[in-house]
């Protein structure tokens, strides 16, 4: 009798403890949701909501100044196919991305490896390299108007001193995009910092073993450094690609601040600039929304391809 009573009590205690455990888990989940709810609410209100709204707008002739909005089906998307400036701006943006992303990554890695070798002055150099990233984009644009001046800019003065050609970076359509790439490579600091952080986690034993085995510095770089920081390389590839495809502020400040005097013409018409013009200068908000979704799709496809191919070359230590 007493044994069975104790057994029942025991069973009952276990059930209560189990319930407590479940309750605790659930409570933790609730608290976790509460803690991340500001982000979730922010995402829904400021990101997901407007994105879905803009998707709807892309199928309308929405003009923010006109009360009536009409559903136009895929007309905006058809118009994009026929719009020569969409093609021009898309080409300018892709051209820039093709050169800017690898350029940023290669220069960033070289600088990070150099910084990794620096001893006491590392803090100073880290700050110096990162400084362009905290400089306002408009100021960067204004600064490079001076540096890239074809007649007496610092860049051409240096090229001239080396006996190299001195192109018109700001006024010759053939050199405007290379000039912009040069400007953006100046702001390579954030990529450098990411690579530097990755390099500093590499175990020295790997290099010691490689040296003992007679590996050259290039072999060490190729077979140890690159695979070991491939996660960081992959990350910078993704973010730099997205940032390049969305280039706006610096170029707008340089070439479109005063529209009438924009000597760059179509050479500096990047996709987001043309999108902005349609939205806020021509008030074709429906068309601009369609343009935004095209860019979103392009970025999505590129990122998907990058993620898929990354399985072949990105190494994660935990795997």
């Amino acid at each position, binding site marked *: 009798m007493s044994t069975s009573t104790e057994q029942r009590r025991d069973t009952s205690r276990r059930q209560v403890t189990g319930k407590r455990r479940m309750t605790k888990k659930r409570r933790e989940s609730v608290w976790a949701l509460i803690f991340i709810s500001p982000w979730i609410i922010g995402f829904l209100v400021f990101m997901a909501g407007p994105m879905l709204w803009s998707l709807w707008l892309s199928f309308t002739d929405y003009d923010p100044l*006109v009360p009536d909005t009409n559903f136009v089906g895929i007309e905006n998307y058809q118009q994009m196919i026929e719009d020569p400036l969409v093609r021009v701006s898309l080409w300018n943006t892709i051209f820039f991305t093709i050169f800017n992303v690898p350029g940023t990554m290669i220069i960033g890695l070289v600088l990070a490896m150099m910084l990794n070798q620096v001893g006491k002055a590392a803090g100073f150099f880290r700050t110096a390299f990162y400084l362009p990233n905290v400089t306002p984009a408009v100021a960067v644009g*204004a600064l490079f*108007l001076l540096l890239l001046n074809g*007649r007496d800019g610092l860049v051409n003065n240096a090229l001239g001193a080396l006996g190299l050609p001195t192109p018109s970076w700001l*006024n010759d359509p053939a050199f405007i995009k290379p000039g912009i790439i040069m400007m953006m490579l100046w702001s390579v600091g954030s990529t450098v910092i990411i690579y530097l952080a990755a390099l500093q986690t590499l175990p020295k034993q790997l290099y010691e073993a490689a040296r003992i085995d007679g590996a050259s510095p290039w072999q060490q770089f190729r077979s140890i450094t690159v695979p070991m920081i491939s996660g960081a390389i992959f990350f910078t590839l993704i973010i730099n690609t997205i940032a390049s495809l969305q280039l706006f502020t610096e170029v707008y400040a340089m070439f479109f*601040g005063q*529209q009438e005097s924009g000597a760059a013409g179509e050479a500096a018409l990047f996709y987001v600039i043309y999108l902005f013009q349609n939205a806020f200068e*021509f*008030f074709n908000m429906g068309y601009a929304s369609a343009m935004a979704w095209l860019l979103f799709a392009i970025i999505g496809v590129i990122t998907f391809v990058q993620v898929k191919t990354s399985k072949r070359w990105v190494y994660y230590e935990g795997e």
Partner: protein
Amino acid sequence: MSTRRIVPALLVAMLVFAACGDDDTPSEPSADPADVTGDLFAFGFGYETGDQIAQVRIDEFRDAYPDVDVSFSESGFDNQTFLSALASGEPPDVVNLPRSSIGTYIARGVLEPLDECIEQEEIDMDVYYPAGVGQVTVDGTHYAIPEFFNSRVWMINNTVFEEAGIDPATLDLSDWDAIAAANEQLTQMDGGQLNRIGIDPKLPEFLPLWSNSNGAPMLLDEGRTSNLDDPAVIEALEFSNSLHEPAGGRTTFLDFRDTWDFFGAENQFATGELAAMPMEIWYLNVLAEASPDVDLTVRPFMTREGEPITFADGNSWAISTSTDNAAAACAFIATMTSTETWVAAAEARAETRAEEGLANLGVYTGNREADEVIFTEIVDLSEFPAMAEAVEVIREVQDQAVAFPPSPAAAEFEAAWVAAVNAVMTGEAEAAAELQETDEAIQATIDAAVP
């Protein structure tokens, strides 16, 4: 300072437009101030910017209508922020916006027709320059009151002209062959290096002036018909673009121009790096302050028939359809553009200039009646004879001004013709083909924008 760095300085220069005046009060707003009360939000304008001409006029309004609590956006007009303001819970009652873009807003029904307001305040639209009024009028209805009146004239560097043996006073500016010949003579190249521009045609932005001087407006029928394919427009572009050639072509020309200290003491006139250019009249104020000793001749731009002509723009005051205080809005825009208010602002400016020991070149308003008082009774340039002559020339051409009509697709039209001119300037396209193609495309856009 290069011309690419001029934008902030340009805005400052426009804000400090000088003036002076006298007591002459022909167009006092007539509504009973006691009946005008409540809050008023003015967009595209500021009191705290330190612009005396703005502050004095606002003070005049506050004195006349003490029961109206007026506030300001404290920033210049901007499409994006105006959209945000309209969408906000407190849309603007009145807006100060460029006349060049007003057609876009009229077509979309954002601006209130002013017929009632004009009647209520007994505003005499005839006192405003016709070109300014034309920019704010659609189908006989006025949608805004012109504020400033910014026109263009030739500015000629006497020292450089005399060195080249050309008389700046007698060069026939209606004869394009003579202009081209003078340009070649005045341009200075040294071993392939451009050291002086003869004549800067100011492309793309001054094509409307070249085009009108050749007898062809670029936009017709209250902004509803593009005229870019007119042979006279094409000819104007071909000629003005050809003025780059003696300087080694457009790229060399622009690279050199970008090095100018446009707002500084070492500006292109002071250094002799430019012989002549058509320019907006506010630039005289810059020169008067930055390099007062520059020997300059100001002459009107001429049609090829030998008549003075200028191209004008400027801001205007309009009432938003979202206003819930139309009486105060109307009183405000009437006061801000009335002769009495302009004169008060000009007088205050004259006093300040006198205290600073600087030449007072006046303020060019859209109000012809105010200008008459300002320039005959307030502005005294007896100690600055060259400036006095310049002001006289400017005043003579104001009534000959032409301007863009209020197109429902104003921004698209501007972007289109600027792109076309740039394509021609870079050599990517021929003027005729490019302008014809652009004309066709932009006409479709305008047609779609007509309400």
